C-alpha cells in the first residue's frame, strides 16, 4: 500500500497546493484504512461459531489395524482419492492425513505395515515411502526405477522383518526397511513374455517371484535375499491360467494354491520342490463343492507375520454369498467349515491366534458377524455382532477385522464394514456402532441449499391464508385460535429460556434431529442437499454439519452427470418442498429423474416422465403449476420438449407463454450454439445459430446468470453525480473458448457475450497469449475470468463490465428483442499471484451488499476478494472524480491478504466448488466450499451492518439512556425551580 500512497503525492508540486495534497492524503488514507477493514477475517472467539469443516478420505482401498500393542487406536487407510491417513479407531476421527497429488501420479499402489512403520508405494511404482504411524511423519522416501508396479512384500530373515521387496514389470528390488536404501535390484528373466505378478517370502532367506505366461505356464524364480542371486528358476505347465493375481494365493510353507472355475478344481504346487514339475489337481467334486457358474472363485489366505510362512488355512469363495474355510494338511485339502450363506469373510490375528470373521445374512435388514478360530473352524462363543443394514444405503462389500486378546485370553474383535455407498461403519460387540464415516461426501458433485420449513405453529398460521374462505365468523375464530397458539408457543419459549438460563451452558446444547428442524429468525440455518459421485444423496444441516438424511441411489453409472433442481421451495405450505435430480449417463446421454423432498429425503410419489431419448438441455421455468411447483422442461436430441410436471394446467400455461420461451443448445464439438423457441404444440423451432469454428477454438464453458440473483442498483453514480446505467440482460450468456493452437505466442482465450434469446453477439474479445483452465463468474453486469498467461507464466484476472450508458433505453423492463444499442464494454486485467482452483461470487437476498469474489486456492484457503478491486473503471491517474467515486487507483497486481482468507486455518483440500446462498439477513451470505473436505461458513461482504454484534453492551446503552432521561427530568425540574425563583424576584 505505501507504494501508491506516497508515490502519487508528487503529482502536485507547487507549495501552495500542499494543503490540497494534504486533503488528498487524508482521502487516500481513509480509503486505505477503509480497505483494511473490509477484511472479513474472524476474531479468535468466533472460530467455529458459525463455521464448520469436515474432512474426508474417500473410498478405502487398504485398511490396516495396528496390532502391535493392545491399546493402540490406530487404523491406517489408503484410499482411491490418493489419501493416506490414520484414523482413531475409537472415534473415527483423523489422527493425521496426507493428501497426495490427484490422478495416477499420486495413486497409492499398496500399503504394508510392520511395527511403527507403514510402507507405501506411490504413483505406479514411482516412489517408495515409509511413514512413522504415530504422528504421520515421513521417515524416508526412495525414487524407484521406472517400470509399472506389480507387487510389493515385506521380507523377513530369522523372524525379523528387515526388507521390503518391490516387484515391477521387468525388475525386482530389495530395500532396507529402516533406511530405504536399495540393497539390490535385478532384472527379471524373460520379462517381455512372462507377466510377473506375485512376490512371496516365507522368512527362509529366499524371495520367490511368480510370473505367468497366460494359458501356457507359470514361472517361478528364486532370489537369494543377501545379494539377489537367482538360486533357481523353473516353469510349470498351467494351460488353464490367465492371471496369477486373481486366482492364486500362497498357503502353508510356500505352497502355491490356485482355483479354476472351468475345470472346477484347485491346484497346488510347492514352490521350492525340485521334483514336482506340474501342479497337482484336486477336483472340487471330491470335496463336495461346486463353484457357481460365471463366478471366478476367490482364495483368501493369511500371513500373520511376514517373516514366517502363511497359515495352512484359507477361505475359498464359491459364489457371491458362499464361503468355505479349508485346510491343507499332509498334502490333503479338507473343509473345516462351510459358510452358506455368507457375504464376507476375513482373517485377523492377535498375538499368536488367528481368527476368521464371517458375515452372514440374518434377516432382510441385518447381518450377523461371527468369529471362528482359524485352525479348527470352531465358533467362538458370544462373539456375535449384529450389523443393521441401512435401508437407504448400499450392501456391505468389505470387511476389516481388528482382533485383540482380552484379559481372560479369549479373543475379542471389532469390525469395520465398508458398503457400496462408501459408508465406513465401525462396530463392536454386540452390535454397537462405535462410529460411522460417510466417505461418499469426499466427492460432492453438486449441491443446493433449501430453506427449512416453519415450525408447526408458524405453519398453522401460514396455512390459514392458504385455505379457502369459509365465512366471516369461522375465519375470525380461526384467526383468534391461531393467535392463541402463537401466544402459547411464545410463553413456552420464554419459559424454556428462563429454565435453560439456570442450567450450565454445556448441557443446554440441544441435538438437532429431523423432527426439531425449523427455520430460524434470519433464515441462517438451511438444509444442504448434496449429491455425490457415488450416487448417494445427503441432507446436511448447515449450522452444525449433522447429516440428517441420506439416500443411496442404486445402479448409478460411475460416470453419470447430475443436475439438481429445486422445483418447489418450502414457501408453499402445505405442499412439501420438492427437488428433482436429473441423472444422466455421460456416454449414452440417457437420463432419469429422481424426485424427493429435500427436508426429509423421502422419495416423492409423483410420477416422473419416462425419458427414452438422450437429454440435451434442461430449463426451469418460472411458470408454476397449481401445486406451486416450477415447471421443468427437458429437451431431447430430437428437440422435443418434455414438461415435468405435465398437468393440464401446466400445458395450458405453456401454450399461452410458448412464444416467449426460448432456450439454447451448445454443441462444443462443432462449436455450434443454437437458439430455439417453443411452439404451442411443445415442439421447437430453430431461430438462431452461431458457429464458432472448432478448428480454431473450442467452446469450453457457457454460463448464464443465476436465477436467484437480485441487483439492487440499476446504475453507478459517477463522480460528477451523473449515473452510468448497467446493462442488466438476464438472458446474457458468457461463452469461453480456448484456442486449439497451444503455442505460447499464438494461444488465446476467447470471450463471447451472447444474448440467449436473439443470438446476438453482444461482445467479442480475445485474450492473447492466454490459455486455460479458465474459471469465470458471470453476474449482474460483469464477467470475471481467470486464465493462465502463457507468455509471462502467471495467472491473470480479467473483468468485463457492461453499461448502457448515461441513459436507459427502456427503464421499466428489459427485453432482449427490444434493445437495439450495443452496450459499452469496459475491461481491465490484473495479475493474480496464486493459482486458482475455483471461483464464485457472493450472493445476498436483495443485492444491496457489495459483492466479493470467493477464490478457492489449491492451498485450501478461500480468499474473499472484494469486487471493488476488480473494477474496470479503476483509474490510471487519480482524478477528483474518481476519488469522489471511491475508485481504487489501478495497480496491475491484485493483492492477497491473509485476513481475506475466510477459512483461517481450516483449509479445504482439493477445493472443487464453492456454493453461495443468500440468507434472510441482507449482510450475510452462506458459503459452502467442497472438495475432499466440506467447509461451511458465513461471509459478510459489507460487514454485519444489519446485526448488532454479539458482545453488544446493552447495559451500557440502557444505563446511558436512563441516565439521560433522568438527567433531563432533573434539569427540567431545576430549570422550573429557577424560573419560578426568577419570577419571584
Amino acid at each position, binding site marked *: 500500500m505505501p507504494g501508491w500512497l506516497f508515490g502519487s503525492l508528487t503529482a502536485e508540486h507547487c507549495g501552495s497546493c500542499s494543503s490540497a495534497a494534504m486533503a488528498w492524503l487524508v482521502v487516500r488514507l481513509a480509503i486505505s484504512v477503509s480497505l483494511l477493514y473490509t477484511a472479513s477475517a474472524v476474531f479468535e472467539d468466533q472460530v467455529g461459531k458459525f463455521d464448520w469443516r469436515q474432512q474426508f478420505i474417500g473410498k478405502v482401498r487398504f485398511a490396516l489395524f495396528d496390532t502391535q500393542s493392545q491399546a493402540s487406536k490406530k487404523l491406517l487407510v489408503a484410499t482411491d482419492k490418493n489419501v493416506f491417513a490414520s484414523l482413531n479407531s475409537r472415534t473415527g476421527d483423523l489422527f493425521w492425513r496426507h493428501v497426495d497429488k490427484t490422478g495416477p501420479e499420486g495413486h497409492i499402489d499398496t500399503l504394508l505395515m510392520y511395527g511403527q512403520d507403514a510402507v507405501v508405494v506411490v504413483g505406479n511404482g514411482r516412489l517408495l515411502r515409509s511413514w512413522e504411524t504415530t504422528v504421520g511423519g515421513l521417515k524416508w522416501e526412495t525414487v524407484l526405477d521406472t517400470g509399472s508396479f506389480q507387487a510389493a512384500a515385506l521380507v523377513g530373515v530369522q523372524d525379523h522383518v528387515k526388507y521390503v521387496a518391490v516387484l515391477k514389470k521387468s525388475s525386482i528390488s530389495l530395500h532396507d526397511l529402516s533406511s530405504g536404501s536399495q540393497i539390490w535390484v535385478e532384472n527379471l528373466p524373460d520379462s517381455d513374455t512372462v507377466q510377473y505378478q506375485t512376490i512371496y517370502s516365507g522368512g527362509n532367506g529366499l524371495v520367490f517371484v511368480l510370473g505367468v505366461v497366460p494359458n501356457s505356464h507359470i514361472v517361478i524364480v528364486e532370489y537369494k535375499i543377501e545379494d539377489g542371486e537367482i538360486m533357481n528358476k523353473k516353469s510349470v505347465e498351467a494351460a488353464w491360467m490367465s492371471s496369477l493375481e486373481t486366482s492364486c494365493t500362497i498357503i502353508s510353507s510356500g505352497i502355491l494354491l490356485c482355483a479354476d472355475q472351468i475345470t472346477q478344481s484347485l491346484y497346488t504346487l510347492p514352490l521350492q520342490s525340485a521334483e514336482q514339475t506340474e501342479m497337482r489337481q484336486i477336483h472340487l467334486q471330491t470335496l463336495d463343492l461346486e463353484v457357481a457358474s460365471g463366478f471366478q472363485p476367490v482364495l483368501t489366505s493369511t500371513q500373520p507375520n511376514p517373516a514366517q510362512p502363511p497359515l495352512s488355512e484359507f477361505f475359498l469363495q464359491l459364489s457371491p454369498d458362499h464361503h468355505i474355510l479349508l485346510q491343507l494338511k499332509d498334502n490333503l485339502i479338507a473343509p473345516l467349515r462351510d459358510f452358506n450363506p455368507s457375504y464376507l469373510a476375513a482373517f485377523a490375528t492377535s498375538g499368536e491366534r488367528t481368527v476368521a470373521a464371517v458375515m452372514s445374512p440374518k434377516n432382510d435388514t441385518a447381518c450377523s458377524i461371527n468369529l471362528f478360530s482359524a485352525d479348527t473352524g470352531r465358533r467362538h462363543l458370544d462373539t456375535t455382532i449384529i450389523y443393521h443394514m441401512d435401508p437407504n444405503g448400499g450392501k456391505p462389500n468389505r470387511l476389516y477385522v481388528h482382533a485383540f486378546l482380552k484379559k481372560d485370553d479369549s479373543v475379542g474383535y471389532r469390525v469395520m464394514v465398508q458398503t457400496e455407498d462408501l459408508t465406513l461403519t465401525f462396530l463392536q460387540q454386540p452390535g454397537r456402532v462405535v462410529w460411522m464415516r460417510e466417505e461418499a461426501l469426499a466427492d460432492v458433485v453438486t449441491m443446493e441449499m433449501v430453506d427449512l420449513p416453519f415450525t408447526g405453529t408458524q405453519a398453522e398460521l401460514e396455512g390459514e391464508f392458504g385455505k379457502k374462505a369459509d365465512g366471516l365468523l369461522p375465519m375470525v375464530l380461526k384467526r383468534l385460535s391461531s393467535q392463541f397458539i402463537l401466544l402459547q408457543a411464545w410463553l413456552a419459549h420464554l419459559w424454556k429460556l428462563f429454565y435453560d438460563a439456570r442450567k450450565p451452558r454445556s448441557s443446554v446444547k440441544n441435538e438437532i434431529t429431523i423432527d426439531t428442524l425449523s427455520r430460524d429468525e434470519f433464515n441462517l440455518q438451511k438444509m444442504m442437499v448434496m449429491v455425490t459421485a457415488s450416487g448417494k444423496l445427503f441432507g446436511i444441516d448447515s449450522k452444525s454439519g449433522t447429516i440428517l438424511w441420506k439416500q443411496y441411489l442404486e445402479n448409478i453409472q460411475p460416470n453419470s452427470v447430475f443436475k439438481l433442481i429445486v422445483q418447489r421451495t418450502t414457501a408453499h405450505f402445505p405442499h412439501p418442498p420438492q427437488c428433482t435430480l436429473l441423472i444422466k449417463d455421460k456416454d449414452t446421454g440417457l437420463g432419469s429423474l429422481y424426485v424427493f423432498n429435500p427436508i426429509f429425503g423421502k422419495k416423492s410419489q409423483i410420477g416422473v416422465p419416462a425419458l427414452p431419448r*438422450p437429454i440435451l438441455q434442461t430449463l426451469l421455468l418460472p411458470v408454476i403449476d397449481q401445486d406451486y411447483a416450477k415447471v421443468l422442461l427437458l429437451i431431447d436430441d430430437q428437440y422435443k420438449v418434455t414438461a415435468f410436471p405435465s398437468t393440464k394446467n401446466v400445458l395450458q400455461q405453456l401454450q399461452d407463454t410458448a412464444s416467449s420461451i426460448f432456450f439454447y443448445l451448445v454443441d*462444443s464439438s462443432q462449436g455450434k450454439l443454437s437458439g430455439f423457441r417453443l411452439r404451442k404444440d411443445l415442439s421447437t423451432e430453430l431461430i438462431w445459430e452461431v458457429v464458432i469454428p472448432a478448428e480454431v477454438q473450442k467452446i469450453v464453458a457457457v454460463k448464464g446468470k443465476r436465477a436467484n440473483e437480485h441487483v439492487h442498483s440499476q446504475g453507478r453514480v459517477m463522480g460528477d453525480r451523473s449515473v452510468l446505467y448497467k446493462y442488466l440482460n438476464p438472458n446474457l450468456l458468457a461463452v469461453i473458448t480456448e484456442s486449439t493452437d497451444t503455442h505460447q505466442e499464438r494461444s488465446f482465450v476467447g470471450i463471447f457475450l451472447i444474448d440467449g434469446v436473439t443470438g446476438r453477439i453482444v461482445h467479442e*474479445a480475445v485474450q492473447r497469449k492466454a490459455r486455460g483452465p479458465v474459471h469465470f463468474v458471470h453476474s449482474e453486469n460483469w464477467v470475471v475470468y481467470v486464465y493462465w498467461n502463457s507468455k509471462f507464466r502467471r495467472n*491473470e484476472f*480479467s473483468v468485463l463490465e457492461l453499461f448502457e450508458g448515461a441513459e436507459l433505453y427502456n427503464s421499466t423492463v428489459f*427485453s432482449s428483442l427490444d434493445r437495439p444499442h450495443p452496450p459499452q464494454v469496459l475491461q481491465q486485467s490484473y495479475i493474480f499471484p496464486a493459482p486458482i482452483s475455483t471461483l464464485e461470487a457472493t450472493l445476498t437476498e436483495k443485492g444491496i451488499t457489495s459483492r466479493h469474489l470467493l477464490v478457492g486456492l489449491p492451498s485450501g484457503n478461500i480468499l474473499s476478494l472484494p469486487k471493488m478491486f476488480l473494477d474496470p473503471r479503476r483509474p490510471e491517474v487519480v482524478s477528483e472524480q474518481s476519488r469522489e467515486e471511491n475508485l481504487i487507483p489501478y495497480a496491475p497486481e491484485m493483492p492477497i491478504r491473509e485476513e481475506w482468507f475466510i477459512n483461517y486455518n481450516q483449509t479445504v483440500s482439493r477445493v472443487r466448488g464453492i456454493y453461495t446462498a443468500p440468507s434472510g439477513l441482507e449482510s450475510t451470505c452462506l458459503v459452502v466450499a467442497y472438495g475432499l473436505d466440506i467447509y461451511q461458513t458465513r461471509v459478510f461482504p459489507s460487514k454485519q451492518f444489519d446485526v448488532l454484534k454479539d458482545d453488544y453492551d446493552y447495559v451500557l446503552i440502557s444505563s446511558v439512556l436512563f441516565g439521560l432521561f433522568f438527567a433531563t427530568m432533573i434539569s427540567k425540574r431545576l430549570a422550573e425551580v429557577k424560573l419560578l425563583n426568577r419570577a419571584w424576584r
Partner: protein
Amino acid sequence: MAMIRVLSLILSVLSTVTLLWTQSGECNNGRRSGDAVDTDFSGFSVPLEHSFEVDDVPRFRLRGALQFRGGRENGVYLSQNQLSEKDRNTLKDVAAVDGLYRIRVPRVSLQMDRQTERQSEGYLTTFVRACSLVESHLSDVITLHTDVSGYVIGVSIVTIPGSCRGIEVEDEVDLEVFNTTVSVVSPVTAPPPETAPYIERMEQEMEKKGKNPQEQKSFFAKYWMYIVPLVLFLMMSGAQDQSGGGAGGGAANGGGR
C-alpha cells in the same frame, strides 16, 4: 414483453471439452489474427437471405448481396432490392400475427487467402420480430461477427427503434426500401495487465521525488504533527467501527457499488 429467462447448462458437452486444449493445434496452419487485417480483399459478395412467412416455416429468399471490398473489414456494403408488393403484404401479415423476420448468411471466411475453403456448409441465422421491422419502416442494423481468423461466426439484426407498439404503417412507400446499416465486427483484443505504464508512472514519481528531496522531506517534517494524530484518529475510529457492528463502514462499502 417480459422475456422468459433462458437458464441452462448443457450437461454433456461442457465437461468433456475441458481437456481439449491440451491437444496441440494440428489444423491451425498459422492463422494469426494479424493476417486478417492485412490481407486485401478482392471484391466478393455473399448472399443475404431472408424469410417471413405467416405459417412461420422458414423459406429463405434472396434479399441482397453483401459486397466485401477493399482491405479493411468495414469495407462492406449491402446491395439489395426493393420489397415487392407481395412481400410487403406478407410482411405486414406476419407482423400482424407477431411472426418472425429471419435472415441468414452462409458461413464464410472474409479472408482472401482462403478463398477456396471460404464457403463451408451451413448458415448463420438470426431473427427480429416482423412487427418491429414494419414499425421501424425497414430501418435495420445488420452486424456480421467474425472470429480471430476472419470466419463469420454470427450475424445479428436489430431495428431502430426496436419496439412493437402496434402502430399501423399506412404508407406503402415506407415498406419498399430497406434502410440498412451493415458492419463487420471482429473481436477486440482484451487488455493485458498494464504493468509498463504503471512502472513508468512509478519511476516518474520516484524521479520527481529524487529531484527535490528537500521539499519532500520538508513536507513530512512540516506536517507530521497533523498526519500522525490523523492517522491515529482514523485507526482508532476504524478499529471502533470494526468492533462496533460496523454500520457506517458497511454503508460506505455498500455505496461503493
